[in-house]
């Protein structure tokens, strides 16, 4: 495309301009096409969810087939317990790995850890479920909340690690140098100065991981297994919100579908709020993706 051809051949220019506008509009179209399913899913879930959401949903146990009403109280509590177990496992490991990758990034090992974290974030969640089954369910001889929480914990690790790393990288080097220059030891600098500075970012990262874990279904199918009664012992099968949605969604009962929509609405709402919060806190700090 030399300069001559542009000047001598106005038809060519016209064609290029045409291609230009066609391609640009295609890109704009792509943007819109992507937004449509989101808005559709969001409004559909909200619409069907809110209409079936009531106090019973949060306070009642599931009713047997055929009886109207009932709720998912046990599943909500179950989800909370599972996420707590997951958090106990996932958050410390995630934060520590993030610190390691960011603060000791010179070493060869830390780049391997970074790579492995990326790989772990791509491992399908159902595989983690099988893993938890092999490690906890088989030795214990029964499905348990512990196994479910363990699986969720592993799934939380990469998200927490990634955000911790990104947040720590934003802490100015001069801050670390100032602390080290005052004779503070390296680990104390990391703990007291760097971590404190980045804490709000890390907390949002943890929230993000929790929101993601709250919606995970696949790894719970054969670890926490589900339960239609109250259960708070962690060595027993336990209900979870996404599991309950799955069971109800594939059932043939109209009333159960309604409840599943209510559950779906609760989940979407949670995801939306957490993401909004994360956006708000990290607005000017970093524009990466996960």
């Amino acid at each position, binding site marked *: 495309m030399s300069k001559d051809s542009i000047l001598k051949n106005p038809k060519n220019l016209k064609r290029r301009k045409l291609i230009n506008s066609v391609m640009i509009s295609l890109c704009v179209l792509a943007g819109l096409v992507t*937004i449509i399913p989101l808005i559709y899913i969001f409004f559909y879930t909200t619409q069907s969810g809110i209409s079936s959401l009531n106090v019973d949903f949060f306070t009642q146990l599931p009713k047997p087939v055929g009886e109207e009403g009932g709720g998912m109280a046990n599943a909500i509590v179950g989800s909370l317990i599972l996420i707590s177990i997951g958090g106990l496992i996932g958050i410390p490991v995630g934060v520590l790995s993030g610190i390691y990758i960011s603060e000791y990034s010179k070493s060869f090992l830390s780049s391997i850890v970074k790579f492995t974290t*990326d790989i772990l974030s791509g491992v399908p969640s159902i595989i983690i479920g099988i893993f938890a089954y092999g490690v906890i369910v088989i030795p214990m001889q029964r499905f348990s909340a512990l196994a479910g929480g363990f699986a969720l914990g592993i799934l939380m690790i990469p998200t927490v690690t990634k955000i911790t790393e990104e947040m720590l990288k934003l802490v100015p080097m001069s801050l670390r140098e100032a602390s080290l220059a005052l004779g503070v030891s390296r680990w104390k600098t990391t703990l007291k100065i760097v971590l404190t500075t980045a804490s709000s970012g890390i907390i949002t990262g943890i929230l993000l991981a929790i929101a993601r874990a709250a919606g995970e279904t696949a790894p719970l199918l054969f670890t926490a297994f589900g339960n239609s009664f109250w259960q708070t012992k962690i060595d027993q099968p336990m209900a979870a919100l996404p599991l309950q949605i799955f069971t109800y969604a594939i059932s043939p009962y109209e009333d159960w579908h309604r409840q599943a929509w209510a559950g779906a609405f609760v989940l979407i709402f949670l995801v939306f709020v957490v*993401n909004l919060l994360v956006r708000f806190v990290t607005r000017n700090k970093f524009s990466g993706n996960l």
Partner: protein
Amino acid sequence: MIILALVFYVALEMFNDSAESRDKFGFGFIFSSEWNPVKEDFGALPFIYGTIVSSIVALLISLPVSIGVAVFLSEIVHKSVRTPISFLIEILAAIPSIIYGFWGIFVFAPFMRTTIQPMLESTLGFLPFFQGNMYGTGLLTASIILAIMITPIISAITRDVLKAIPKSQREAAYALGATKWEAIKMALLNARSGILGGAVLGLGRAIGETMAVTMVIGNKAQIVASLFEPAYSMASVIANEFAEASGSLHISSLIEVGFILFGVTFIINSLARLLIYSVTRNA
């Protein structure tokens, strides 16, 4: 450090637990299309086929759209529009897959049955892919849902990679009289290995996706050319049968399916990460 050990442990555990089925079926496991829990005869071919076809079709749908979105967000629109839209797309990535599946069976599958599938059959019906029974659920439905799910991932990475291409290159193109699209095309060409990485990453995500696929793919272990027909995927057979598997051979076979799935996603993800690192490292 723990993470490192963990990934190896996961692989090891799955390898050990699938020993029984590996001993019994050997490599034939991958090529046999028999899956019969009653006769205790297991082969994974239909699941592998379902997983690969649904993921690749999803990628074919998603890739052009993702690149379009990335270009739209990073090169075309003003910042005031970009922020809310990229936020919405991030949310799209954060919606739990169970909700996609739920929406898929109750809203999208009927829409496929009444609108999209008849339309495809009347226009492209001469191809074997677009013939057959229209149930609504099936390979194509699963692929489209997967495409919606992986678009945010691919477009986010494409945006990152485009950001890593120096601005001066685009300015140079404009200075030579290039149109906007020509400048963008050049940036895209330079970023191609990174975009490929993003695509491969999306593929990995699609292959491992469980709940949404389980709910819309139809769950029938068969190999047919038509995209309308129900099929089965590796992740969904594990999800459906694991908890109520009969006999240790059944469980062991399911774990072997999981092991294959793990191996495939591991290779795909490594490849993707290496491609992405190679572009963004120097940014």
